[in-house]
């Protein structure tokens, strides 16, 4: 029985709860659902913390559980939750009418799940590509491919947007 791993995990969860919430929120755009997801993720993590062999991997390990929970939640709810612009406006109520940052953020949210996850983890949660590959349990090259595909797609979309404006 490895109790320090348990303590570390608890500590990690408490210290990073805000980050977890933001990730979950990016998938479901709803406070209650995001809180549900976090609750489930914590349960799962604590139930199976014994499978966590390397304590250094807590970060990527927990992110993996969290993201799986998010995706599962979306699948279960079956409703397709796309970016609801009204909800997002509420978050940045004080911003100016045209906000390029917001435009980019909205585009990121609308990416397909695989691409979106990588952008969020890399740019918003500032994880290295290696950490992401561990989190998602995919090959590092696959992460790179998806990242570039996502960036290319974003760039195209923003250019089209810019031209029509």
């Amino acid at each position: 029985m490895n109790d320090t791993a348990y303590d570390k995990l608890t500590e990690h969860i408490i210290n990073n709860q805000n980050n977890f919430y933001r990730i979950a929120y990016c998938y479901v755009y709803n406070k209650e659902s995001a809180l549900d997801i976090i609750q489930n993720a914590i349960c799962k993590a604590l139930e199976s913390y014994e499978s966590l062999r390397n304590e250094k991997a807590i970060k990527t390990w927990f992110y993996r559980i969290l993201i799986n929970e998010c995706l599962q939640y979306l699948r279960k709810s079956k409703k397709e939750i796309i970016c609801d612009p009204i909800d997002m406006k509420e978050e940045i109520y004080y911003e100016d009418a045209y906000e390029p940052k917001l435009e980019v953020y909205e585009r990121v949210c609308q990416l397909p799940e695989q691409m979106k996850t990588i952008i969020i983890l890399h740019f918003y949660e500032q994880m290295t590509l290696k950490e992401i590959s561990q989190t998602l349990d995919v090959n590092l090259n696959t992460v790179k491919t998806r990242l570039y595909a996502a960036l290319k797609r974003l760039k195209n979309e923003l250019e089209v947007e810019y031209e029509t404006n």
Partner: protein
Amino acid sequence: MKQIKESKDIYDSIKIPGELKQVVDNTLKEQAGNLNFTRNRSKGNIVFHLMKYTMAAAAVSLIFFSVALNTSEVFAKEVDKIPVINGLAKVLTVRSYEDVTDNQKISVKVPNIEINQADNNGLDKANQGETEQFVADVNKEIDKIIDAYVADAQKSIDEYKQAFIQTGGTEEEWKQKDIGVKVDYDVKYQADNRLSLVLTADENWCSAYGKKYYYNLDLKDNTQISLKDILGEDYINIANESIISQMKNRVQDNKDYVYWGIAGDGALDIDGFTSIDENTNFYINEKGNPVICFDKYEVAPGFMGAQEFEIIK
């Protein structure tokens, strides 16, 4: 690339609800309890295996007894180590209704504060009854406020519609206005024995009708928390100084801003903020600091919306 990095600001500004902390703490605590159960059970199995190899039944039961005792003691310590800051109470939506008619759309969420029965650490029996009474009174008051607000809103919408139709508006055009009433709440802070709750009531066709009610409760002393409780005897000066300097900073950062009587273009022509008092509205934010709230138009022009100032303890 650069643009994506910049859009992180938006991501970072995703609002963290006050309930998050409680959800996390509670889940950790509950899981710790479950874990205790499964662990003891597996210990039990080990003892069972031991039994096969031990002939003396009396000795076995003695081992069993001491092992069980030890595990639960070890476990008890473990539970204590987990830094759980748990609320004495939780806030639930008891009544939530939407009433959509041709005239308007009413959407209401009524909060209800409940004492955590399973976890009343810090509350002794005698005190618990009082707290229940206190909470029940607050719930009743919230109920009353909401009912009165909705009835009022209903009345003013009816009057507005009547006037609208009389002056040549059609039913079709009325529907397009999509008039609605929304009552909702936000738990701002919840830890230990403190609970901070803001109730918002709004009519979407006239923002001046929006109202906010602030509840900061101490569930140990059964009182409403005042600014004095948080900031101390000198709370008026502390808060005033902080608010005025924050106003000046904001005007410096944004040239369009005006705080009447304090700073900004033409600010001195209009009487504005002078001082807070014991009735000034505030809530407690996730850091435990009081945030003083002014309604729209109260200290600044309407375009700046409602103004909030965090007072760092």
